[in-house]
């Protein structure tokens, strides 16, 4: 792999940019691997990357049915924050945010991490109280957040309307180190490094069956033939239940469509991320100038990757009330992704009933921010054949054992 650097840009500028290599090599599957990761989204690629980087494992394939980053990793609104309520969540999300800070250098790929600050508005008394509680929990766990008053909110975001009429802003939870990153770049950067480590990235290859011998995994059936493996990890977000079905078990997961949209590009008008959980909408501005907008998920299970129209209307209505200045903007694009929801709105990083088969899923509406930390923790689990400190609270058993990691307040709006 040729390094990206100032001198490489300089050199290429003088030879018509003809010397750039493909970021990663597209491979056909070998007969057998030590480890197969199913799903070429951020979490799958990061898992493969940290297996190589932290544990020297490189006999690995990442199998993707479509293209790298074509799932939720390339469809999200890129908010990165770690202001969660429970200790175990803070552990993994803060690890992740911390890894994001130097990820561009680590991957030698500009993921455009922009710690521009995340502001979570409080628009009811209950929300204000809940956010105060969250900010205390953050303090105790060393996450840098604080409560700010309405006037300060107005100072941070001059275009905001804090006076209601329906839901005046009563305060906000401010995480200055939160922000955004370029979602595609995260997937591409990890894929490039994986490829450099000798990991096979296999696109256009769908897993359609699981071969087991006495409840131990032995091979995967794919649209490119059977591939043997000692260990397999499913990292397929919204399609996790479909894969679990193939392996003969069920998951505590329901899949729904979540949508986002962007406006036409305009001059810079907002330099942080604002989330309004009560009215259900959030917004930031991309480097291209588009307002990136998201809201609620569909109220019923589906794999349609489109989403209901009325959700878009509700989201936009809520945001126009909060930011009257955006009312005349036109929508440029809208899209949907299939998100994997758990009952407690926390992820699953776990062993499964099948020996040698691991799973990472349940990130639902908020897993982009968790990609580096989750990959780190999942790699550790696969290598050691048991979850480490970061992952162990997130095992599937927690549901039957009643150890839910309740983040339904922290994840109130889909993000």
């Amino acid at each position, binding site marked *: 792999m040729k390094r990206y650097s100032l001198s490489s840009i300089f050199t290429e500028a003088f030879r018509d940019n003809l010397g750039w290599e493909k970021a990663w090599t597209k491979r056909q599957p070998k007969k057998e691997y030590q480890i197969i990761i199913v799903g070429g989204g951020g979490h799958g690629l990061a898992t493969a990357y940290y297996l190589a980087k932290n544990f020297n494992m490189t006999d690995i394939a990442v199998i993707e049915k479509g293209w790298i980053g074509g799932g939720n990793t390339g469809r999200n609104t890129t908010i990165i924050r770690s202001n969660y309520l429970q200790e175990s969540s803070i552990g993994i999300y803060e690890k992740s945010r911390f890894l994001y800070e130097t990820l561009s250098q680590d991957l030698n790929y500009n993921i455009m991490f922009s710690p521009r600050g995340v502001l979570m508005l409080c628009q009811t008394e209950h929300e204000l109280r809940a956010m105060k509680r969250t900010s205390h929990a953050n303090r105790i766990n060393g996450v840098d957040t604080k409560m700010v008053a309405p006037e300060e909110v107005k100072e941070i975001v001059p275009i905001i309307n804090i006076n209601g009429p329906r839901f005046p802003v009563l305060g906000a939870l401010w995480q200055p180190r939160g922000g955004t990153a370029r979602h595609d770049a995260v997937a591409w950067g990890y894929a490039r490094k994986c490829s450099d480590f000798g990991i096979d990235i296999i696109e256009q290859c769908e897993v359609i069956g699981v071969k087991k011998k006495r409840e131990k995994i032995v091979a995967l059936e794919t649209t490119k033939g059977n591939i043997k493996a000692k260990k397999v990890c499913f990292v397929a977000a919204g399609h996790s*239940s479909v894969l679990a079905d193939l392996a003969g078990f*069920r998951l505590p*997961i329901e899949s729904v469509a979540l949508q986002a949209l962007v406006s036409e590009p305009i001059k810079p008008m907002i330099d942080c991320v604002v989330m309004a959980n009560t009215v259900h909408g959030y917004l930031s501005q991309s480097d291209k100038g588009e307002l990136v907008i998201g809201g609620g998920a569909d*109220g019923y*299970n589906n*794999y349609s990757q489109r989403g209901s129209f009325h959700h878009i209307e509700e989201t936009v209505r809520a945001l126009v009330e909060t930011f009257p200045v955006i009312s005349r903007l036109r929508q440029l694009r809208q899209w949907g992704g299939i998100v994997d929801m758990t*009952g407690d709105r926390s992820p699953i990083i776990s062993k499964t009933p099948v020996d040698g088969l691991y799973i990472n899923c349940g990130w639902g509406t908020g897993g982009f921010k968790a990609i580096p930390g989750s990959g780190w923790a999942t790699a550790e689990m696969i290598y050691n054949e048991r979850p480490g400190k970061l992952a162990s609270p997130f095992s599937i058993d927690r549901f039957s054992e009643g150890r839910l990691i309740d983040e339904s307040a922290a994840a109130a709006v889909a993000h």
Partner: protein
Amino acid sequence: MLNIYCPICQRDCDETELSCGGQAHLIRRDHASSDKDFYEYLYERKNGKGIIFERWRHVYGCGKWFHTARCTLTNQVFGSYSAKEVQPPKSILATIRRSRVDFKGWVK
């Protein structure tokens, strides 16, 4: 926007009038059941990609529950039936089979 027939009001309703109650025909468990059964009842859903049978409530209408058959991939709705049914009626299964030759029938 989904358009679903309410068998009680006997008319088609917009998705915005309705609220989805998830997988239908669950076996209700109580405190006397085993941990495994109770876990299944609370959390494990089929969540399949394809035909599903689910509960809907006409919240901004008659307020009553009913059941519907729908494809989670295309969102095609195959019809509704009474919430009193313990399994999908033959007529609904026949409707599904007419447009989905590979439909394997309802499994518990």
